[in-house]
């Protein structure tokens, strides 16, 4: 018996150890990004344009604006498609077509981001012979859709059926019951899901490499190539210049800050939602 108890204790210990092993890289990455990033982060980083090679200083103002344009425009494509197909899957979950849509969403979620980039290149860059912010936002939007679809579905299912039944009993059509009662009840959760999806795609690099490309200059024209934080960090990281490495770390810190803030916000929002549902 003592041997089995020892074995049990050893395995329990190994499980604890693996948690530590998983958290060490997290701590290492966060620590380094913060310590290297903080010292390079200054006002110029947010307000100035990149300096030519050889000159120190400058910032990533154009890349920051570019990232906001790309993710914002991507969200414009993805939110209607994601939310409405989520409503469909939640409402007609039993039907064969709904399972196909759900499966398509899961598949799209697993498609490598670089492949989505090639697709956006073939559809939005090749015909116009021009890299553009539009193509980049399309690639990001495609990556957002499945995340939004699945969150919308999950959250609509959490809405108590009594709410819908109340609306139907009052004579509302199904359309009206869904869009004026069920969806609004789940709206805070859906918005949280959208926030998380935004944070995730704001950190994407691969699908932008040959759609939005990059731009050393200030540009807000969606028909032109545009800079983004992630592509800029990549360009700087693989460059041989010390000052560019410094800026890459600052860019990484801004990216990680964006992601962490939205993850924390989402966590608080979901905790509140869960309390609300338990109260119902």
């Amino acid at each position, binding site marked *: 018996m003592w041997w*089995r108890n020892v*074995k049990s204790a*050893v*395995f*329990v210990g*190994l*499980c*604890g*150890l*693996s*948690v530590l092993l*998983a*958290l060490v*890289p*997290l701590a*290492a*990455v966060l620590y*380094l*990004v913060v310590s290297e990033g903080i010292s390079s982060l200054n006002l110029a980083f947010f307000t100035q344009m990149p300096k030519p090679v050889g000159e120190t200083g400058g910032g990533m103002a154009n890349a920051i604006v570019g990232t906001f344009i790309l993710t914002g425009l991507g969200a414009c494509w993805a939110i*209607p*498609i994601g939310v*409405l*197909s989520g409503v*469909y899957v939640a*409402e*007609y979950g039993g039907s064969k*077509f709904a399972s196909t*849509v759900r499966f398509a969403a*899961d*598949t*799209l979620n*697993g*498609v*490598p981001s*670089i*492949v*989505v980039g*090639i*697709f956006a*290149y*073939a559809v939005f860059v090749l015909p116009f012979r021009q890299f553009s912010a539009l193509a980049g936002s399309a690639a990001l939007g495609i990556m957002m859709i499945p995340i939004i*679809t699945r969150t919308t579905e999950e959250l609509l299912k959490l809405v108590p059926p009594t709410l819908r039944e109340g609306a139907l009993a009052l004579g509302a*059509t*199904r*359309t009206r019951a869904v869009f004026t009662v069920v969806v609004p009840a789940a709206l805070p959760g859906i918005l949280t899901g959208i926030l998380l999806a935004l944070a995730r795609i704001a*950190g994407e*690099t*691969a699908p932008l*490499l*040959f759609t939005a490309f990059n731009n050393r200059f200030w540009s807000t024209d969606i028909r032109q190539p545009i800079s983004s934080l*992630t592509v800029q*960090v*990549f360009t700087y*990281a693989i460059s041989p210049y010390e000052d560019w490495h410094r800026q890459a770390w600052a860019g*990484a810190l801004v*990216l*990680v800050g964006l992601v*962490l803030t939205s*993850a924390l916000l989402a*966590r608080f929002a979901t905790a509140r939602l869960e309390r609300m549902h338990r109260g119902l």
Partner: protein
Amino acid sequence: MAKREDWTLRLSTGGFGLLLLMIVAGIGVQLYRESALSIAKFGWSFWTTENWDPVSGEFGALPFIWGTMYSSILALVISTPIALGVAVFTSELAPAWLQRPLVFLTELLAAIPSIVYGLWGIFVLVPLVRQFEVWAPAWLKAFPLFQGPPLGVGMLAAALVLAIMVIPFSSSVAREVLRSVPRAQREAAYALGATRWEAIRTALFFGRTGIIGAVILGFGRALGETMAVTMVIGNTPQISWSLFAPQYTMAAVIANEFTEATEELYLHALVEIGLVLFAMTLVINLLSRALIWAVGREGKRAAVSQPPTLASEGA
């Protein structure tokens, strides 16, 4: 009033569902169309030859397939035990107050952008790996697994970064699988006098298909991972068993060479690599979903056929 179908809702939302479906199908179709030249010219030999020479128009993708498969498998070998340990600890062993923060932290690992891992890889991990390679004693270097000059960049660094990035995916799925294993399974084990580990092993065994599914899902993630790998693997198309050798992956070659591909055939060759990457992830997702789904169903059936239990486990 008879129950009437509300077509407004069905058609308006269904239309967007159809659009989602068309995007997925469109990816496959477009990738196929844009790789037609390369498929027609090289056929199967594209996947069996090693020669990647854009200048003379010779394209063989074997080194990239090799690099992708080798790095992903190595990443799985490293990450699977850790991911399983994390899943077991967060779902079965950790006290209730610790579970949620731990789950949150492991999920943060998945939230950090790939490019940040890449940056960390270039400036921290690669120098560490190089130190290890310099330090490696001669008897170790006698193995083919550890041959070559100490460059730092290469398969070992890529596999480590990939492993870190895959852990949160497989551990969160494995955790869900463990949760869907009926409590009665563990209680029966305890009732027979099992130790804690033996009870957990029972649960792991019950959910084995789903756990394999979780690992395969992680494999799918590793196959398609681009930026972090591109930044640390060394980007040299060669087939080698050595962990110290710089190599290349399918995603990395697309990321690096796509904008340089001025020849149409070159571009089509790169898209064909993307097409196969797409097909691989498709098959892998299908397989893992089927496995995970099977456990959920089995768990429900087992839970229904057993009476509710009172005792709580692990106390």
